[in-house]
């Protein structure tokens, strides 16, 4: 199941950090990403490959460089499948409760 693989890929803090780095600045090289993460180039490469395999990252060649892009499509799918369906109502109810309690407190 596609979702399983995406959730497993997201379960690792280094991989989430890589996605955050690409969210801040899209289209980075392995070298640029490695500077931000305290890990060997091989380690970063391994994590990037996992993210690429599940479609969270797409790499494109640009001249001699390989640029990595965040692909928001699988995250959108998870949002539509899980967050929207179960939580939006409850989250907004909790938000209203929090505001109400803070107003009283």
């Amino acid at each position, binding site marked *: 199941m596609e979702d399983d693989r995406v959730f497993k890929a997201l379960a690792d803090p280094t991989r989430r950090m890589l996605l955050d780095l690409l969210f801040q600045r899209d289209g980075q090289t392995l070298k640029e990403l490695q500077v931000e993460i305290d890990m060997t180039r091989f380690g970063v490469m391994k994590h990037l490959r996992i993210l690429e395999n599940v*479609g969270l990252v797409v790499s*494109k060649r640009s001249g001699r460089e390989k640029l990595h892009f965040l692909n*928001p*499509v699988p995250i*959108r799918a998870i949002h539509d499948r899980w967050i929207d369906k179960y939580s939006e109502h409850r989250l907004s109810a909790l938000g209203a409760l929090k505001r109400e309690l803070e107003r009283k407190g």
Partner: protein
Amino acid sequence: MSDTKAVQVFRIVIKASAQAIWEAITKPEWTERYGYGGRVAYDLVSDGRFSHGASPEMKSFGLPDEIIVGKVIESDPPRKLVQTWHPLFDPATTAEPHTRLTYEITEHDGVCTVTITHDATNAPKVATMVSGGGDPQQGGGGWPWILSDLKSLLETGKRMAGS
């Protein structure tokens, strides 16, 4: 949210033939059935005209007949389509320069990978609009939402639930 990058990449895997996906992108009888609807008109030759027409619902909100226009740069059916893309439905994005859109379709083992590369250099409002960070029902779904809907339609014959 950080600044939206000029070049954005969107990818989805669809269980359909490259030809079916190509037609879903370039034929009006398909484009009116997913995403935000509306019928496209493509002259699939170099320098050919592209337009995306408003759906009846959009017209009822007062949008122009053509909501997006552009020119075909490269057409290699059913694998690659490069075109310019310029929205006309909102003054803020219309004021920005034309952007460049590339569709790439690669078929492998009965499934296709569809990659959209949208180069919105010097068009930050277009970049934000297509990135899909907003509510799909308010028109903020961007490419992630349109591609997900296309996948649902081609794989199941139906659009995504609730859309």
